[in-house]
């Protein structure tokens, strides 16, 4: 069943991606990521000596500050900060610089749907720009459930508001490896099936969710390729 998207994309088509790094002079790493009209800038400072209270001094600490476009920080922003902090903690190698703090500051330049995945992609590119040691990269995608089990990727703000449910998914990037295919295993599961973060809004059935995971995973490969090309230039 063909869904009519108001910007005439197909169901699986992503908006044009653009990424530029090293855009801020004083930040140790910075990146600007845009998906269509949604633009987020990320700046990374660190690692700097010292650690926040209640944090483990044997590991590096990651601090996230989210600045929305209209400068009113509320609960939604705190939730984004917490999700981002957990996601970035799982991709950074935290044991290399113990007792240090790395600060990631996100500025939403424009929000036209799927702003959290855009922010995760931007902060990952900024961490690479700053030279923070990472286990692998994170690629994020938003999948929206458009009634009767069909899934659209990368919805705009209008589409997000109309859909009954949408989910933000973060996957590790696809890696090039000298090992024979299928041998990268973590705890017995192949790396290809890994997922880092999943945030769901709305009501979604288990089958629909698994279908979203599948579509999202396929799309993450395209974003992963784009990220690799942009990091190599």
């Amino acid at each position, binding site marked *: 069943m063909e869904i009519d998207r108001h910007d005439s994309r197909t169901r699986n088509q992503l908006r044009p991606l653009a990424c530029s790094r090293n855009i801020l002079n004083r930040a140790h790493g910075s990146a600007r990521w845009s998906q269509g009209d949604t633009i987020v800038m990320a700046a990374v400072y660190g690692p700097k000596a010292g650690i926040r209270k209640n944090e483990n001094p044997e590991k590096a600490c990651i601090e996230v500050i989210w600045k929305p476009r209209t400068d009113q920080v509320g609960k939604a922003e705190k939730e984004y900060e917490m999700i981002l902090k957990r996601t970035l903690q799982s991709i950074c190698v935290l044991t290399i610089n113990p*007792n*240090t703090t790395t600060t990631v500051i996100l500025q939403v330049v424009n929000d036209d749907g799927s702003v959290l995945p855009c922010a995760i992609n931007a902060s990952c590119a900024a961490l690479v720009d700053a*030279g923070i040691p*990472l286990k692998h990269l994170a690629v994020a995608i938003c999948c929206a459930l458009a009634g009767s089990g069909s899934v659209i990727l990368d919805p705009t703000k209008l589409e997000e508001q109309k859909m009954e449910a949408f989910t933000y998914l973060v996957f590790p990037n696809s*890696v*090039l490896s*000298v*090992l024979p295919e299928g041998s990268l295993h973590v705890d017995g599961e192949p790396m290809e099936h890994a997922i880092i973060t999943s945030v769901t809004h709305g009501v979604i059935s288990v089958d629909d969710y698994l279908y979203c995971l599948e579509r999202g995973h396929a799309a993450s490969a395209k974003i992963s390729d784009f990220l690799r090309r942009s990091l190599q230039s």
Partner: protein
Amino acid sequence: MDGKPLTSPASFIDQMVVPGDVVLDLSSMANQTIKLGGGLRQDSDAISVMKAGKLKFSRPNKYWVESSQKRYVPCVEDTVLGVVVDSKADNFLVDIKGPALAFLPVLAFEGGTRRNIPKFEVGSLLYVRVVKASAGMNPELSCTDASGKAAEFGILKDGYMFETSTGVSRMLLSSPTCPVLEALGKKLSFEIAVGLNGRVWVNAGSTSMIILVANAIMSSESLSGTKQKIMVENLLRRFQ
């Protein structure tokens, strides 16, 4: 999307790699003693990349990822430019743009005794050598070379210090001399100290020459050899 099965590590050498790429498989390599430099980590039998950059190899068994950053990772025997932040009874605390402040022992000078401790003000610029650098500990510095002589280490007075990336520092210290320094050196006389942590200090006869040298170095980061020479010639032509 699929990890391409490659049989030899030579395929990744001198290629750009991103974090997560597995570049070496220890179980399939004959000579199993390998030295890993910056940007690589060991995950049981697989060596994977931590920082994006170009994978380099040097015979017989050294692998590392070369990349250019604004922050510095302290390594032993590097010469860096540090800024004094504080002085304690036994050490000076020096900022070298790394994850932690570095300690410069009060006695680490040529002929240094408890009676002639140098007095450095906060903010002084020092040219020092890294003596100890391990994970989790503050690096230790020294103002002498390995044999105990002063050898140009110490405070840098006058002049102008600016910050660039570590890649530019390595380019300035490479041999043969990099094109931008060669072109500047043919027409101007100036003194320069390059720290591997991305700090560069320039001193020359007049302020305009200092600014010219600093600007030329800062804009040479992304230029190739011939473009650097052209850029320097343009700058010199406008000022002389």
